[in-house]
């Protein structure tokens, strides 16, 4: 036990590991040092990283360009908000209900599409069609509350609770949201890491690279595409509930629009799809640019998205693998130039650990 602990500590003497530790501690302490707007930007970065990460499972690893993820997001947002408003159920439980409904949708839509062999562009278009149909259904769907109608095109306001309440998933400050978003993101990164290094992950990438070859090797491609879709749906859902509780307002035009799916794709591809950290990097690059341009020039100036459009065209043309390579190089460069810390004279060990 003691030896193991010692080995772990001596591992930290290598720059590769202690640099990571510094990054982690900085991430945790950031809300204390930043102003609310900066924390808000970071929360958005995390939301988009979560969305792109979950899209990454179906789009990046399994190679099925899904547009349905906006529907998973919206359904979870609606499920938790409506359960809370109509029955007073905690959004945390609503989050799981939303995830369950999203998974059902993913299995249903996935079975339909993949059973009939939709691939590439056709899966793309079919999933856009389903998303738009769901959005239109929500635009025309109202729920009675105390004699009033909520929902539909008016959207749903989540009732505001006095003070902070973990049970109600509502806080006055931004820091609690920051930590919740961070926790969800880390959990999803861990899940993605586990999937990538499991048999399941190899099945997914095999299907992406050559579906016929995968099928001939005995992989049940229909089953694993649906599995990938369901995992993607389950991972998208928490972001939906989080979004609803963070902004306290949802409507079909913001949480169920196909534009949201496009944004997930953009973030994932800009960072590097089919990689664990790609989507996070994409969100880190894109969101701050957009939010700051919006803050300085107004929300509807269009300039933020002009820049986004240029970045997309740039990435598509010159760097289809995304920004992740540059980040890896940068990380390795910094880690390579930091000194090794020697713990207790165990130089040899420290070096072999790096």
């Amino acid at each position, binding site marked *: 036990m003691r030896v193991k602990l010692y080995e772990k500590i001596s591992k930290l003497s290598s720059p590769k590991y202690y640099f990571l530790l510094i990054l982690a501690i900085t991430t945790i302490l950031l809300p204390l040092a930043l102003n609310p707007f900066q924390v808000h930007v970071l929360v958005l970065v995390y939301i988009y990283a979560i969305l792109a990460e979950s899209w990454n499972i179906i*789009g990046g690893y399994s*190679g099925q*360009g899904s547009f349905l993820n906006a529907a998973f997001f919206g359904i979870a947002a609606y499920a938790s908000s409506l359960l809370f408003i109509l029955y007073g159920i905690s959004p945390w439980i609503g989050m799981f209900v939303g995830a369950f409904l999203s998974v059902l949708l993913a299995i249903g839509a996935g079975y*339909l*599409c993949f059973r*009939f*062999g*939709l691939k*590439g*562009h*056709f899966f*793309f*278009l*079919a999933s*856009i*069609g*389903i998303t*738009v*149909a769901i959005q*239109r*259904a929500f*635009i*025309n769907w109202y729920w009675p509350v105390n004699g009033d109608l909520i929902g539909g095109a008016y959207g749903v306001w989540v009732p505001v609770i006095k003070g902070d309440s973990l049970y109600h998933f509502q806080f006055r400050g931004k820091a609690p949201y920051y930590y919740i978003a961070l926790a969800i993101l880390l959990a999803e990164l861990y899940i993605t890491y586990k999937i990538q290094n499991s048999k399941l992950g190899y099945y997914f990438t095999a299907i992406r690279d050559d579906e016929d070859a995968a099928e001939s090797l005995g992989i049940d491609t229909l089953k694993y595409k649906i599995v990938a879709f369901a995992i993607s749906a389950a991972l998208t859902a928490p972001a939906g509930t989080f979004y609803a509780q963070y902004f306290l307002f949802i409507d079909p035009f913001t949480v169920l629009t196909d534009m949201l799916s*496009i944004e997930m*794709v*953009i973030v994932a*591809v800009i960072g590097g799809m089919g990689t664990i950290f790609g989507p996070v990097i994409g969100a880190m690059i894109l969101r701050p640019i957009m939010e700051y341009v919006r803050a300085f020039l107004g929300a*509807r*100036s*269009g*300039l*933020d*998205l*002009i820049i*986004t*459009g*240029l*970045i*997309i*065209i740039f*990435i*598509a*043309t*010159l760097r*289809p693998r995304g920004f992740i390579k540059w980040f890896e190089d940068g990380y390795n460069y910094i880690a390579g130039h930091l000194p090794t810390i020697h713990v207790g004279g165990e130089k040899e060990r420290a070096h072999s650990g790096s």
Partner: protein
Amino acid sequence: MVEITLILQVIIGGLLLGSIYALIASGLDVIYGVMEVINFAHGEFIMLSMYVSYWLFVLYGIDPLISLAIAPLICFIIGAIFQKLVIERVLGAPIFIQTFATFGLLILLQNIAMFLWKEDFRSTGISYGTIAVGDISISIPRLISSIGCLVTVGALYVFFSKTKLGMALRATSEKRDVAKLMGVNISYMYWLAFGIGTMCAGVAGVFISTFYYLYPTVGSVFILMAFVICVLGGTGNLLGALVGGLIIGEVEVLSAFFIGPQWKEVVAMIIFVIILLFKPSGLFGGRK
């Protein structure tokens, strides 16, 4: 009891709408047929052309029907340049990256319009009047538009079936490598196809500007239906685009009339998904 003239009026409205859809879908079809790229920015070319026609009318008093000579040309040039600079570089990449590049163009064009002209709804405000046939009245701009769109689709059809250039384009769409061996300049064909495709959107845009509002995201109104039509008629098939356009036009107005205007897109999307599932090659689609 619904009156028969009312239904007739609705059906005619559907045909007028459908022929405009047919032209938009033809443009998408040309691009998809020749290079297998779905141009998500197609609606934005409609929007662009509508603005060109609008500004020419407002600033210089040029009738939109005259700007038919200008706006589509601008669309052609932008489309061809985009093809040359961006799509050509990513043709070898996974299909995903090509689509992704057209998203970039979509967002870019939409927001340049947003930046320059703000979110206001504008309208050329021309009134060409209406003509009445019995109890049925038809708005003249819509009639002109739909005839103009049909003529353009017809011209495209003739271009592809009768001219040498059109045949070279078709050869490229059928077998890229063989066409290359036969001395067809593939790279030239590609930018020509992209230009023609976006030009179709440009022509449709000019016509639409005579009777519809314009705003930066107006393209999304038409693009979705254009996807439906392409799939319905069989991708890369002009006849399919024409028939599909007329069908979807009818579906849209009839479902708006009988079920309610808010459900017309849902009906279209359900048809879309059903076609995709059961006959992804479309009504007129062969193998390709």
